[in-house]
């Protein structure tokens, strides 16, 4: 039943996308017929629509995976807290007396106990594995999200995040290069000063250039 429903939905979505593509093709051909010279540069691409639908499907998958991991992460804690409460009551029952100081300190004792137990739990291999899976699911979802936004931005002739990142990287690489060159010039100047002092010669304008060239 569910599979059938999903198939119907998928068929419907693709049918709609196909319709949009057909309309775009029709529109493009009309532009070509009316003599718009720039239209030839912008043909409708079937890949455009399918590319987007593929990315949307990936996002849906990533969302489903993320939801599943969140549930599993939460499910990890619920029984653990209940067990913690039970073991706390068993442990404390032997030491409890009628002159228990007050409700506030009793609750604080429970919180302290739960905090320590929770720390143990958070350091267990099971927890670390569950949080790792959750982290991976979040990362995958974010990556799918970014691919869609990059796709849409590129369709609108706007710089994508990936392009901006690449530009940013170039700037930082250039900054590093400039700094290295500055360091090199500084050390050459130092050398020049030292050799000048040693030889007690008047400074020459060419010697620095020669050293830089070498």
């Amino acid at each position: 039943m569910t599979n059938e429903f999903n198939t119907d939905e998928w068929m419907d979505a693709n049918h709609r996308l196909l319709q949009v593509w057909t309309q775009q093709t029709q529109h493009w051909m009309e532009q070509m017929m009316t003599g718009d010279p720039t239209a030839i540069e912008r043909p409708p691409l079937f890949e455009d629509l399918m590319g987007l639908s593929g990315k949307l499907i990936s996002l849906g998958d990533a969302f489903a995976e993320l939801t599943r991991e969140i549930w599993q992460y939460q499910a990890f804690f619920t029984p653990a807290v209940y067990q913690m409460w039970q073991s706390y009551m068993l442990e404390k029952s032997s030491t409890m007396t009628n002159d228990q100081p007050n409700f506030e300190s009793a609750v604080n004792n429970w919180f302290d106990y739960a905090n320590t137990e929770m720390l143990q739990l958070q350091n267990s291999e099971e927890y670390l594995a569950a949080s790792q899976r959750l982290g991976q699911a979040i990362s995958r979802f974010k990556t799918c999200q970014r691919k869609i936004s990059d796709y849409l931005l590129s369709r609108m002739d706007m710089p994508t995040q990936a392009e901006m990142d690449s530009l940013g990287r170039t700037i930082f690489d250039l900054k590093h290069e400039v700094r290295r060159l500055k360091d090199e010039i500084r050390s050459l100047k130092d050398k020049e000063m030292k050799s000048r002092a040693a030889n007690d010669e008047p400074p020459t304008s060419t010697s620095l250039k020669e050293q830089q060239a070498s």
Partner: protein
Amino acid sequence: MNAQQQLPKAYTGYNPLAEAMRQGTRLMNAYAAWLDLSEKDIEIATLEKKEVMRMGHISLYRYTPLVEKKHDTPVLVVYSQIGRFTMLDLQPDRSLLRNLLNEGYEVYLIDWGHPGRAERWMTFEDYVEDCIGSSVDFMCDACDVDKISLLGICEGGVFSTCYAALHPERIKALALTVTPIDFHADLDAPAEDMQGQISRWVQKMSEEDIDAYGHLPGEITGLFFLAMTPIKSLTKYNWDLPNALSGKREDVINFFRMEKWLADRPDHPGEAGRQWLMNLYQRNELVKGEFMIGENRVDLTRLSMPVLNVMALQDHIVPPPTSRPLRNFVPEENYEELEFDVGHIGTFVSKRACRALSDKLADFLAD
């Protein structure tokens, strides 16, 4: 003998109405004190300072002297990118910076600001060589000295250590507070000691996690810290609130000042974050002598200046075992350790620890 049977016996003296009245009165008093507060009352980092150099979104500040200058060597304070330097001047009676100024030091500080997506590719090389390097050059020119003193805090301590190891000739003294050096030293610490959690968590991270965001979001870093005291974090803003506020005006102000600092958690540039988590936390390259700043290897044995290593015994973010290994690299006659029985932040915001730290630093950094 089950839980339900034990409860009534245990709390026979409990009067819910009286308890609710008591806590309610505290909260009402705190609320009244809160209503009476203005934005000015909870201002933090109020010391007067001037921006003397700007490197993109990063600023170098010079603090306005409070007394006549007594020391020729200026001090550069390098805070972590995780969190804000404002904690060093949280309020007048808990201000490490004010204490140093009162001792006659010329104090400079690098404010790493709030990096955006454009800083994604900022690396340790940029932090160490460009920012600290340029600041040291500026300070040497401005104060007419050849060397300066460095005070590094947490991740800022790692930046400072790297700079001092690469350029020992420019550093007169190096003071480090709550700075990790051996990132694996706490991996096997028992969980109940609350140590080694960050190391264990980070071992499970992958580079894709950083790529997905492009940076380390401040909110997520904050969540990591909250998860280190899981139940206490859950009860902080409800059950524990009446006690934290207690109805006194001063307590309410302190609470809000601290919250203001906690809420200001900048994102960490992605590439530097990758080096922090992968090269240092996962591969522990600093202590192995394999950590690279650009094309230069950081060799800790080159720390030839006097070094003061300050640790917090209750610190579960940078536990003392991760800081202590620095002693293996610095000649004994140049190395000093100082320990406080407080947590990571307590080193600076506990009135007593802050005073003791300031006194020790004033002594250590003296010409």
